[in-house]
């Protein structure tokens, strides 16, 4: 009995130590990625290629999701606003919801599922098939050549995707609110223009999406780089990327919102 208890406590201790060690390793990995980013900018075509894979190839899912989210916002917003005779504020509701919250957050969650999982699987398989070792043996640093361009590709893509999500979402709200239901078009756009502040709303939304881009891409890269070089290892790492980065996005969103809109 005593032996079992000791073993259980020892097990907990090992898990805690492993967890802290992994956190430290992730921090060192992130720092190394930043410090070895020179190549990503000197040979910017490497980063552009990753912007294509992470950003351009995510466009379909981002645009389609954004359109539907905007359309749902239009419907739900109209239902509530008409009770108070404020249908004309529909444009404001749709735009602020998207620019402040839904655009950055949903785009980041979709980005984690599509691009984040792909990055983890790719890096994990490169490790499992010794491509990263081969690169090291060719005197090419894999952090500088493989990891850093993907990191910056993700960080640059994320705010652009979030902006497109918000833009197409506003269009979706317009389609439902103005074209389908018949809200006054002039009121829809004029109230939106008057209510949305460039610094308070747009810039804060962009800051959020940059932070989410850093978090999701860093998590995806680390999970791939740290994955055990087996099929099972890569599969678990890919799952962890989606789960961890989704939770990180939601937690970061709460913290950023608390800081950004505390005066409201």
């Amino acid at each position, binding site marked *: 009995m005593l032996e079992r208890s000791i073993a259980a406590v020892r097990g907990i201790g090992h898990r805690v130590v492993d967890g802290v060690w992994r956190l430290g390793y992730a921090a060192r990995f992130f720092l190394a990625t930043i410090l070895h980013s020179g190549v990503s900018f000197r040979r910017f075509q490497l980063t552009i290629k990753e912007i294509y894979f992470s950003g351009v190839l995510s466009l379909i899912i981002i645009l389609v999701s954004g359109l539907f989210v905007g359309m749902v916002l239009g419907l739900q917003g109209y239902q509530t606003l008409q009770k108070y005779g404020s249908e004309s504020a529909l444009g404001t509701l749709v735009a602020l919801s998207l620019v402040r919250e839904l655009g950055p957050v949903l785009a980041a969650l979709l980005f984690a599922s599509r691009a984040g999982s792909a990055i983890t699987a790719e890096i994990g398989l490169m490790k499992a*098939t*010794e491509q990263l*070792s*081969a690169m090291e*043996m060719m005197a*090419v640093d894999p952090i500088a050549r493989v990891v850093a361009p993907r990191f910056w590709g993700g960080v640059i893509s994320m705010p652009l995707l979030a902006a497109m999500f918000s833009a197409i979402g506003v269009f979706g709200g317009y389609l439902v609110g103005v074209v389908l239901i018949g809200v006054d078009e002039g009121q829809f756009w004029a109230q939106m223009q008057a209510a949305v502040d460039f610094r308070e709303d747009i810039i804060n939304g962009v800051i959020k999406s940059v932070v989410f881009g850093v978090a999701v891409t860093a998590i995806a890269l680390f999970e791939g780089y740290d994955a055990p070089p087996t099929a099972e290892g890569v599969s678990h790492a890919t799952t962890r990327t989606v789960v961890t980065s989704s939770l990180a996005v939601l937690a970061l969103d709460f913290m950023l919102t608390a800081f950004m809109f505390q005066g409201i």
Partner: protein
Amino acid sequence: MASDNLIQIRDVNFSYDVRPILKGINMNIPRGKVVAIMGLSGCGKTTLLRLIGGQIMPTSGQVVVDGQVTTDLDSEGIYALRRRMGMLFQFGALFTDMTVFDNVAFQMREHTDLPEELIRDLVMMKLHAVGLHAARDLRPAELSGGMARRVALARAIALDPMLIMYDEPFTGLDPIAMSVIGNLVRKLNDALGATSIIVTHDVQESLQIVDYIYFMADGVVIAEGTPNDIRKSDTAFVHQFVHGEIDGPMAYHYPAPGYAEDMKVGGAHA
């Protein structure tokens, strides 16, 4: 004056955590020779290659490559040394997102400022040397195992290295592909004036092409000599290994308390 040995391994010990992998290894790899390191899977052969390439450092002892002690070098020194090495990995380790051409050109583009026209000519020469210049536009997924190994070999010799290391180059190949790779190893070594180390457990193919052999078991060198010495060796392990005998010092079963005990039958009828 440069030593006759390109690589000297002196009293090298290496452990993963507390598990010893190499125990007091001493080896000399002479310049211009093809040397094989043989032994069963898990005896520390690949670890030795990683030590020579500076990917890991010995727990104690020295690895001297072309007069430079790897433990004395910083990461830039190690990278400078690796630029003069080529390595063929067990399954090629070709970059799957690049064509055959781009794989071979990879190091040239990373480490030199050569114009693209010159790189093209050099890559075609390297691919021609392994008989695959026509496969330049294929992707690694479109290659057979033997072709992938030859492309990886062309990539390993891209910058005319002083040392070429082969990690199990014959694994999973058909007999023809095996002979092709074996001949290439020998010919390229002699043509480039390089030195080669082959880590393998393929005895018959290796004995035909190498100049010298080290036999390893359980982290130590247990025999060494020329192919003729090895063929005639009366060391029990070497004899068992060379002739592929089931009975010998290397047991077939993984060490265990006993089959009968595991099956809980008391041992009488095991």
